[in-house]
């Protein structure tokens, strides 16, 4: 007999619905001529919204986390918050994908199916409460992402992206799994809370097993969030992948990876807190420094945003580093804001880019303020938010993260954080310089919008500004994502 009540499956209705949606689109997309792009996009939007509604209704969480399905998964505010953020990110990705799917000449159904399946994986990830269930969900996300990254089958760069992503991703997954197995070997537990309880004793009896195990686990996780020195795959993958996919990787995928990083460290390894804090402090510092310095020299917008996303991983690590209530809230809030900001910025890349990777240079933004003032203003908002200048969500998020670090006594890391974000102004504003201070030439690509794209950009702008001007309700929303701390 199963060790749990099968009715608990009902509590996973959102994930199940999303998986069914993905499978349905997969089948529909492979039958006959497939489904037209717009239909596929509408269907996947429908599934995403329905899933979000189910998350809001079915997964009603009480004050106490609820373990389901033999403690494989947990229903708590943390999971709920991140599920909603991920769904929002995916929905925006669907919107900015419309044009790309339309003129990409690849089947729309499969594209959207992969997106939905990857999202399903993310939802399971953030709800996972067991190293194995987390890992399997991670693989579902990762495998779907590898294919998405190589979606331009006939572009060498896309192939390169997919291959690099696959090889390095598989390596990191393997390391992660190996780390998990070592911890299992030392403690005999896979459940995060039991693992935490068994660790103190295992640290004595297991000798090297525990440090090796958690270090490998950390390497695998830091790899997924693209923290320096495990970031080398990021620029090539981000540049080679189709831009909507890049946006998805930078926003949703990173959010989900951060969620499990936080959950595993805080709930699974609280005993090792002083140890991993040192590691995280070091990684956060070099990530912020290197991510920003490397971005300084980039002339390709996608590559610049790739390095910027590395740098932002460093900032988010500050919240984890603090390992405090505020720290976790700040991580949650920042990832919420970051999802909208990043997707908005990449949506702008989509507006200007052409087939075969044209229109991705910083100089292609020249004179945008004159030709498309509203789009330029939108991009300016995203750039300000990425830099962390008010009145944007990026500012409030960064203040929150720095506050967490200062409060926890990690002032020197916070100092690195503020100085590097001042540096980041330089490269973000190289785009603003082009938009506002330079004149367009004959070769400058015309902005090419579509209603869906406009809707996505407008949503992101409004969200970024609202998060900056009236963040109150959202901070409270993010506070629901707290985890019990050691």
């Amino acid at each position, binding site marked *: 007999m*199963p060790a749990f009540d099968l009715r608990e499956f009902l509590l996973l209705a959102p994930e199940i619905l999303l998986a069914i949606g993905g499978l349905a689109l997969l*089948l529909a997309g492979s039958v006959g001529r497939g489904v037209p792009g717009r239909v596929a996009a509408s269907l996947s939007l429908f599934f995403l919204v329905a899933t979000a509604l189910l998350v809001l209704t079915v997964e009603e969480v009480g004050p106490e986390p609820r373990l389901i399905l033999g403690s494989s998964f947990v229903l708590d505010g943390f999971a709920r918050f991140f599920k909603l953020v991920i769904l929002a990110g995916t929905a925006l990705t669907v919107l900015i994908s419309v044009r790309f799917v339309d003129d990409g*000449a690849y089947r729309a159904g499969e594209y959207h199916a992969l997106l939905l399946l990857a999202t399903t994986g993310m939802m399971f990830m953030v709800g996972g409460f067991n190293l194995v269930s987390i890992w399997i969900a991670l693989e579902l996300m990762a495998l779907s992402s590898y294919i998405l990254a190589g979606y331009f089958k006939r572009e060498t760069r896309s192939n390169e992206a997919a291959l690099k992503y696959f090889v390095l991703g598989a390596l990191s997954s393997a390391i992660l799994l190996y780390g998990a197995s070592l911890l299992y070997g030392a403690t005999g537990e896979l459940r995060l809370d039991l693992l935490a309880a068994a660790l103190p004793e295992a640290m004595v009896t297991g000798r090297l097993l525990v440090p090796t195990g958690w270090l490998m686990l950390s390497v695998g996780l830091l790899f997924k969030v693209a923290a320096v020195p495990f970031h080398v795959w990021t620029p090539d993958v981000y540049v080679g992948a189709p831009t909507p996919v890049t946006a998805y990787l930078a926003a949703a995928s990173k959010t989900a990876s951060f969620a499990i990083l936080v959950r595993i460290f805080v709930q699974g390894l609280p005993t090792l807190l002083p140890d991993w804090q040192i590691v995280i402090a070091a990684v956060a510092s070099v990530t912020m420094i290197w991510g920003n310095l490397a971005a300084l020299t980039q002339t390709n917008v996608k590559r610049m945003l790739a390095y910027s996303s590395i740098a932002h991983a460093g900032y988010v690590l500050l919240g984890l580093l603090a390992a405090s209530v505020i720290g976790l809230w700040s991580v949650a809030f920042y990832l919420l804001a970051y999802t909208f900001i990043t997707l908005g910025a990449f949506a702008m890349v989509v507006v200007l880019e052409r087939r075969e990777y044209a229109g991705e240079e910083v100089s292609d933004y020249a004179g945008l303020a004159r030709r498309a003032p509203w789009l330029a203003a939108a991009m300016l908002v995203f750039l300000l938010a990425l830099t962390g200048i008010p009145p944007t969500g990026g500012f409030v998020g960064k203040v929150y993260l720095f506050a967490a670090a200062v409060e926890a006594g990690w002032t020197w890391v916070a100092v690195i954080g503020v100085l590097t974000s001042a540096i980041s102004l330089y490269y973000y504003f190289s785009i603003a310089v082009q938009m506002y201070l330079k004149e367009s030439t004959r070769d400058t690509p015309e902005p090419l919008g579509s209603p869906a794209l406009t809707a996505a950009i407008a949503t992101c702008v409004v969200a970024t500004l609202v998060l900056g001007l009236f963040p109150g309700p959202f901070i409270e929303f993010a506070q629901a994502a707290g985890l019990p701390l050691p």
Partner: protein
Amino acid sequence: MPETYLPVLLALAFALILGGVILAASGLIGRGSGGRVKLSPYESGEPLLDPSRKRISILFFLIAIDFVIFDVEAAFLYPWVLVLREGGWPLFWSVMVFVALILVGFVYIWRKGGLDLKKRFRTRWQEASHG
């Protein structure tokens, strides 16, 4: 317990030593014979018709991959059969969901022409991506 692995270690060592000894002995004792003709590759006693390192269709590779996927997943069904009665309906339906998922994958491969050996991928969407 490490010591329980001792037989494995011994067996491994024995295999390595035996193989090494046989090879070394035949090399030392045996007479070299035949030369070029003996070393040339042949198939069933016939000389080769074309080089052995030729390119083969990726299709075989894909078929092999498909086979491995379904084969491995089918392996899960054996233990299920053994505990089917104890598991009852919940277990039955769980496995049905599992089979359904595999079925979706199967239909997908089928519709994409992954099982279609003759047409060699000349399907419509491929043409579409060219144009």
